């Protein structure tokens, strides 16, 4: 089945004064694909996500989300994307259900549609048992689930998950992986992470960023073949050391 280009960047650059956070990024993500943007802290992953979601204006270059320019068609882009930021970003004094209803109201508008969508998400993300709990009382894992649920409740075509399992224990992380996997093929997803196993487990393709530059993109098999290494960690270390040389 032919797929359209969901995300397309050409020389996308972000500079803060003399520092280049993202350096001439050329990236294409197809519809329905899950791409893991892999890199250590400060690699430029979050900055890239911010530009692709209209949160940050690129210094140079361009980016299109389903054909819409992130600069010129900001309103359209914002209606197409959902983001789960690195910090959980929930309304702490609202319950889980109220947080979801709030986001549904912002994105969907109509009361009946919002109400049914909230029920759908509560069920789909197994949040029913905590629906009446205030967000501030939730554990880290539940908050992350809520954050992702809030990102998808507006039925985005493109979803950005910025370090979704950061700080979670292994069990909470595995549970969240299951939820993320259930979203695959429903929408285009960019997942930023510095956990190798997360990128390996979830992503269709992996893009490695080092010091603001995209150094390699491909499936795990393609990356292994290109570097002659086995396993994503070895691939990453090889690429990172190679870029420093």
């Amino acid at each position, binding site marked *: 089945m032919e797929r359209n280009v969901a995300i397309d960047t050409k020389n996308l650059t972000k500079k803060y004064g003399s520092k280049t956070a993202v350096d001439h990024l050329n990236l294409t993500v197809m519809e329905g694909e899950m791409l893991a943007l892999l890199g250590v802290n400060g690699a430029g992953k979050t900055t890239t996500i911010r530009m692709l*979601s*209209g*949160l*940050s*204006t690129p210094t140079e270059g361009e980016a299109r989300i389903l054909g819409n320019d992130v600069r010129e068609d900001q*309103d359209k882009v*914002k*209606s197409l*994307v959902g*983001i789960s*930021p*690195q*910090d*959980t*970003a*929930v*309304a702490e*004094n*609202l319950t889980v259900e*109220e947080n979801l209803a*709030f*986001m549904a*109201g*912002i*994105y969907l*508008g109509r009361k009946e549609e919002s109400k049914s969508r909230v029920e759908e998400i509560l069920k789909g993300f197994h949040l029913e048992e905590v629906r009446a709990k*205030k967000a501030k009382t939730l554990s880290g894992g539940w908050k992350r689930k809520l954050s992702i649920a*809030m990102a998808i409740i*507006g039925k985005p075509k493109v979803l950005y998950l910025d370090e979704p399992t950061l700080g979670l224990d292994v069990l909470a992380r595995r549970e969240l992986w299951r939820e993320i996997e259930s979203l695959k093929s429903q929408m285009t997803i960019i997942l930023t992470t510095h956990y190798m196993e997360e990128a390996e487990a979830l992503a269709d393709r992996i893009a490695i960023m080092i010091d603001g530059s995209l150094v390699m993109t491909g499936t795990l098999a393609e990356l292994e073949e290109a570097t002659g290494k086995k396993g994503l960690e070895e691939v990453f270390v090889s690429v990172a050391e190679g870029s420093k040389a």
Partner: protein
Amino acid sequence: MNRTLQFSKRNLIEISRDVLSYIFCIGFPLVMLGVMTLVNESIPKEAGMTIFRIDNLAGGIGIFGLTFIMLFSAMAVSKDRTSSFLIRMYASPMKGSDFTNGYLLPMLVVALVQAALSFIVAFIISVTVGDAINPLGLLAGLASLLPSALFFVFIGILFGTLFNDKAAPGLCSIIISLGSFLGGIWFDAEATGGVMLKICKCMPFLYCTKSVRSAIHLEFGWEEFWLPLLIVTAAAAVMAVLSMLVFRTKMKADLA
């Protein structure tokens, strides 16, 4: 409009679940109403001081309460700006006006509820002390409070936009003190006269108190009511434009 209402609803829920908002926005003004009534009862009649007489006190407390609404407006905005929640909202289809109106509307609701409660208690006190305030006056006072409420809420939004959640409350407390004194809430500025009165007349706070007090007394002359109300309305309009411009500028800077 729907997004504004959704954001307003969220902010109203946040305020209503904050215990401090009940203490400062409702409890404290009512306590001051009771305390200053006791002070008034203790002042000898020969002193001729009427500033704490319940019909004057009600208007003063009405404005005093609004200064705390300003504080909570500032805290609501600054807290959101320092948390990543606003980042999520910036990525949504919400516009700058949705944000500022979304902070304004619930604060106005709280302001009117606070003022209504203060005036009800003031009425009860006035009946108790044998000097009942005309309920029509209290209704007129409530209506005339609206421009003052807008003025203070917009100051709160401005401070919350400009300063973080540590600095904003501190700066608001300066305005609370200034507003109380320069607004003639705790002393009779007009009777004091001199330099003090000149200073009070240079700030909008005195006109806030004057317009509400005149309305409660059902005095609608140009000098007593309409001129002060006009000044407060103009001040509210200036604050509205300033706060919206600053919010939009800060939002653009955050997204740069």
